[in-house]
């Protein structure tokens, strides 16, 4: 039984319950590690507002895949799917409505800047005003300070959830500023990641803040559902796909009704993976989320989600496969991207590669076997052959 969406009182811990005591007439930021229930609390807040006859809310996310994922669970909270939108969609529609449509450039970073500037111009000109009783923002760390400022203008109240360690896009950190301006609540515990996944994720967390590690704050039922992390080197991407398809067969049986995720850091690696899967016995199980193939609604009868690693942000999977992981090296903020990717997995994580992994990931994976004895000199050096001695 999937535990992604939870709405019952008994499923909340005291810290999560505390979020419900927060006033609806103030702005709030909820911070917590991956799997701490932030998105669920965000949606429960939306449910609370709608139930309190404040239906004019909007849930804003950063990526289209996350929009589709949250929409798939929104019915559990009585939130109409149309109220969950990306910032890009929200912004371009507003501009169109006020008669100032904008053509966004193709580059990701450039398009964000153009959109923010256009929106801010309209706000400054008094043509865009407060639109919503409350703006609820998921993965708020991924929004630029300018985007956060616009969202705060659009909503009478702001409710955001964030985890600075999962910031994977370039641009200024908006969370530090936000923390100074509005009430901030922290969730200490998380429930998603199995212990082995926590060990790798903790190995990736670069800063030493004195805060407890994911392993220390995990409430994952490891005794009931043992977690695994596997590093799987292969010569080619095609061989990686062979192994993936074999594992999918077992995982679909082992985790009925649960999502299994497949992602590649680079789009060019994802194309052949999608091709192989579409020609496999799992073709009718696929939910493909790419800008090339389009985005589709999550379907409870389909259990295999394929996307770029960036698009997996905010999602969670019982088993997660990162293919062509050497491609991580290509990206800025790659350590954060890897941290985000690793923490998508609840129980099973497989990292496939056909070239060297980034050294920080190698180091994090090595934490899984901390007691491996130091290799002795005899094993390092070849034995002298008898002829040489002569």
């Amino acid at each position, binding site marked *: 039984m999937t535990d992604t969406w939870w709405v019952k009182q008994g499923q909340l811990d005291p810290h999560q319950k505390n979020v419900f005591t927060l006033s609806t007439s103030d702005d709030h930021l909820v911070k917590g590690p991956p799997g701490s229930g932030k998105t669920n609390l965000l949606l429960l807040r939306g449910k609370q507002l709608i139930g309190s006859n404040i239906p004019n809310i909007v849930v804003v996310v950063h990526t289209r895949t996350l929009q589709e994922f949250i929409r798939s669970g929104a019915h559990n909270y009585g939130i109409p799917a149309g109220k969950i939108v990306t910032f890009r969609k929200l912004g371009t529609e507003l501009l169109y409505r006020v008669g100032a449509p904008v053509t966004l450039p193709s580059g990701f970073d450039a398009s964000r800047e153009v959109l923010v500037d256009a929106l801010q111009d309209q706000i400054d000109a008094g043509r865009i005003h407060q639109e919503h009783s409350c703006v609820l923002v998921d993965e708020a760390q991924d929004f630029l300070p300018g985007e956060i400022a616009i969202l705060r203008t659009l909503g009478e109240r702001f409710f955001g959830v964030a985890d600075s360690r999962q910031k994977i896009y370039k641009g200024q950190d908006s969370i530090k500023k936000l923390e100074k301006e509005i009430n901030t609540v922290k969730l200490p515990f998380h429930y998603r990641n199995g212990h082995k996944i926590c060990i790798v994720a903790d190995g990736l967390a670069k800063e030493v803040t004195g805060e407890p590690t994911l392993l220390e704050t995990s409430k994952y039922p490891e005794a009931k559902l043992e977690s695994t992390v596997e590093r799987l080197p292969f010569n080619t991407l095609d061989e990686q796909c062979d192994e993936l398809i074999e594992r999918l067969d077992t995982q679909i049986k*082992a985790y009925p009704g649960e999502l299994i995720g497949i992602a590649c850091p680079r789009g060019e690696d994802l194309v052949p993976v999608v091709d192989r899967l579409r020609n496999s016995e799992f073709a009718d199980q696929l939910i493909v989320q790419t800008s090339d193939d389009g985005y589709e609604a999550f379907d409870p009868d389909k259990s295999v989600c394929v996307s770029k690693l960036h698009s997996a942000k905010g999602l969670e999977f019982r088993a997660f496969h990162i293919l062509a992981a050497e491609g991580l090296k290509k990206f800025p903020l790659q350590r954060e991207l890897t941290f985000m990717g690793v923490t998508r997995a609840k129980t*099973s994580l497989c990292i496939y590669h056909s070239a060297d992994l980034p050294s920080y990931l190698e180091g994090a994976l090595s934490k899984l076997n901390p007691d491996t004895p130091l290799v002795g000199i005899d094993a390092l050096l070849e034995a002298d052959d008898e002829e040489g001695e002569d």
Partner: protein
Amino acid sequence: MWALPADRKLLLDIFSRQSPPPHLTGFVDPKRDLVHSSDELLLLWASEPKPAPQSGDYLPDAIVVQPKQMREFLAWITTVAGGYRPFTAFIRIIDPQYLQHAIEPKEPSLGAFENAVAGLIIAEALTLAGPQRSLSALSLLPCESTYSYSFARALALGYAPDGDDPIAASFGLARKLTRQPARKLSDELLSTTLKVLSGLASDTKTANHPGDIPPFIWETCRELQSEREVTQSWGLLADAGVLPNQLLAELRGPREQRVRAFERILKGPNRLDVLTSSFLAGLLADQISPGSFEHVDLLLPYLNQYPTALIWYGLCAGLHPDSEVQQVGNCLGRRLIRDLLAYDPILSRPKYDIAVRELEVHLDREEPLEFRTASQNHIAVELLPGVPAYMKWPVTATEAVSTPSRGVSGSARQAELPLNSSFAEPGAGLLSADRHYAIQDLERAVERVKRILTEPSQSPSAPDKGDYKRRGKKH
């Protein structure tokens, strides 16, 4: 409670609506005087008998009849009280052994076995469902038409205190009378599971090993229930050479590893008997995610080889103290438990179509009597006071077998209720017996036509005398 020893004349007075109504005298203290009463009839009322406002009837809530007189009495009462048909849809006729239950009604209870019962019932319904098996498509009625459901209701009402099966005879009789086809699951295959359940339910702390249950099955189920997981019983399995130690270790690892081990074991050679191997298959499925009952699909390909594997899986999953069985299928199990624990004292109006002993009077005769059922496609037969069995009704000749069997009939078709049957049927209330016998007539006619057409020596244009005779008789 009010009790009145009576004879048939008094009963006739009550049902003949005399005016003024009969004067009822001679009430006795039920707790003191009734247990050893030898009167022909005992009329029981939950509260002081009063004439009904409109009809003036003093209808009792139940009538106690000696077992030897039961059939003859039912034949008599259904004849003289034609305004109440089926009679047992209005008034319970009970055997003296249920008198104590009538005098001191108790809330039904399954104790700590609610999940085990829910698992067993859902698993039996899925096993019987045939190729279209699907937990999500399974509705309440097919579950409540299982043998396990009727058995569990009897268990909840305290009718099986010593672990015996109190419904075996009446369930078989009801199926025979309503011409149900042979069950896919024979009573023998199912009985061990039910014995384990009733044995554990009888006294979990001191339950001794019932002699006819294999020791490792009994010990494993006890351990699942009391220790949350199987530990020592694995030793029994390994010692008996049933499973190699290496595979047992794999079944302790990550879930994917457990699935692979499970499939390797079930696909491997099997030298065990059907009971042992089916139990083992169900137990291993449960060990993939103990108590969850979410791996039904894994067992489905193996049901021909291990016919009761799913049923053992349901029981094992339900025995875990933290079992989630009641929540599966959108809380299907919870609904089942609600119905199993519904309070239905004997001294209240029956809630089912007819009692099995009256069904016998209506159907076990040359010209069956007509009666009304609540649904157009199933009948609710009361096997014991408050214990129903839901059966497909009417059953066509193509679905039925002429001689209901207790054993497995691999090729026999099964007229079980469809997966998504519901209690509320459009057009409910038609005379089911009318339809039943009309269908029988039609089927007989079709058979005759087939027979005529397949007799090569006879031409339709020149029928022999026999044909004329048969036709003449029919028309």
